[in-house]
């Protein structure tokens, strides 16, 4: 018997109607839930992008602050010893020395460091520590036409699951800069 006919006969049909109404409500609720489910990750993604952009710029600025110029006598000065993968930027690294190929694609010390969810330095080396949320890699390449001009690149990625080395990383931010020797 159709709902209309049952209504017409005045014989009830509350249960069927209710089930239909409930179904509609559940359908609507599912839509609302999907909005909520998508909003939260989007907000976290925006936060991650903001922090990643700051971290990428931070590494470029660290690279730019290394000595790459001339003495007052005109002798070139090149910092090729600072290890920017350490928190304090100790000696013992490669500074603005040319990086080997592929440092942006894999965790190749000393061209990589790891940062926690607040963007604080969390470690270096080939394997990220458990607290690492962001992976930051960089490269230094002299221009073929002018070895005194350096192309600095930095990227920040995040693993899909915090602290894991496997899984496809998502590039959150990428920056390039040019550094030249100036007298």
């Amino acid at each position: 018997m159709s709902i209309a006919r049952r209504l017409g006969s005045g014989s009830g049909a509350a249960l069927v109607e209710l089930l239909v109404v409930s179904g509609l409500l559940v359908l609507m609720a599912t839509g609302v839930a999907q909005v909520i489910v998508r909003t939260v990750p989007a907000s976290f993604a925006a936060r991650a992008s903001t922090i990643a952009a700051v971290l990428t710029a931070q590494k470029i600025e660290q690279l730019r602050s290394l000595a790459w110029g001339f003495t007052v006598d005109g002798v070139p000065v090149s910092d090729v010893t600072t290890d920017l993968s350490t928190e304090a930027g100790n000696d013992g690294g490669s500074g603005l020395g040319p990086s080997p190929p592929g440092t942006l694609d894999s965790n190749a010390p000393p061209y990589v460091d790891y940062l926690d969810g607040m963007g604080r330095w969390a470690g270096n080396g080939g394997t990220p520590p458990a607290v690492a949320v962001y992976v930051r890699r960089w490269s230094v390449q002299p221009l073929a036409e002018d070895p005194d001009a350096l192309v600095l690149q930095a990227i920040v990625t995040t693993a899909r699951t915090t602290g894991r080395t496997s899984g496809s990383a998502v590039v959150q931010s990428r920056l390039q800069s040019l550094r030249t020797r100036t007298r």
Partner: protein
Amino acid sequence: MIGISRGLPGPRQSGYVLVEMLVSTAVMCAVLAVLLQLAVTGQHVLRTQSDAADLQQRLRVAVVAMQRDLQLAGAGPTQGAWRGRLVDLFAPVVPARTGARRGDAELSHFSDRISIVYVPDVPAQTSLTRTMASAGAPLGIDPVAAGCPAGGSCGFSPGDRALIFDPARVGGGHDLFTVEGVGAGQLLAPAGAISKAYPAGSPVVQVVQRIYYLDRAGNRLMVYDGESSDVPLVDHVVDLRVAYYADPSPNSVPSPPTGTSTCVFAAGDPPVPLLANLEGLAPKRLAPVHLTDGPVCGHAPNRFDGDLLRVTRIAVTIRLEAEAAELRGSGAAFVRSGTSRDGTLYVADQQVTFEVSPRNMRTVR
């Protein structure tokens, strides 16, 4: 089946009303419970995500504003007789509040404030045509110096922030002042006394002065222009820390000619550096004591520590909190505790550290 309707007047209905009512009530209750839970969750999400978005936006505003000014720190005149970087003569970045109002004592250090000076790309760049009669005398400027616009005052107008400095040597003296008036005879009247009578040829340029500091009582990041504008830039800032990294070599600051001295070199052949050798090539973080122990440069009341002349990188850590106390809980995620006791209704503090290598503060060797 006996229905509730049996005793009621009207046509008899064949409905199983009680059972239906019980079942429908149960179904409705279940659906409503789910809907209410969704509504509560949705309300929490709406409340927290809008505040989280606001927090991120405020963070971006603070970072972008400070980054821009720090990148420009030390930029000097681009026209006129003296062109170059301000850092070759005085410290364009100081770890204290400078300016006409409530300025910190010279040579002081505060980790939660920084003063920045740079010359913008404006035509108001000229020099003194004659030596000042006294420190309080009006400044006679060259109105037709290269790049000056026509009109007799080289683009200066009352209210402009201006800089005058002695270009003879590092630490020779500098003053920031507000132009009170532009008089006949190409005279600039400073709003207050300046530290010394500058010689003819001293550059006089329009300048940008920015002082960022943390108002701890009001939890606000403030920006001050050195004169009258002292306004909040971002609210709900709970921490601000500025660190300075310097070239470790004492020879990274330009040395004077043989036989002469400056505040960072003693006379000698070659001149003897007075700055400490911090060893190595990597920029070294300067402790507060490095920024207050001398050598002292400049003229009172604008003296500064000579180590500031070799700063190559500045790191700023800033931490913001959610605006509403009901979205702040307690624990390590919050500098200031709030009233939230709900695990789903909170927005944690956000902190970032950004670094800037000012483009006009690179050192030499």
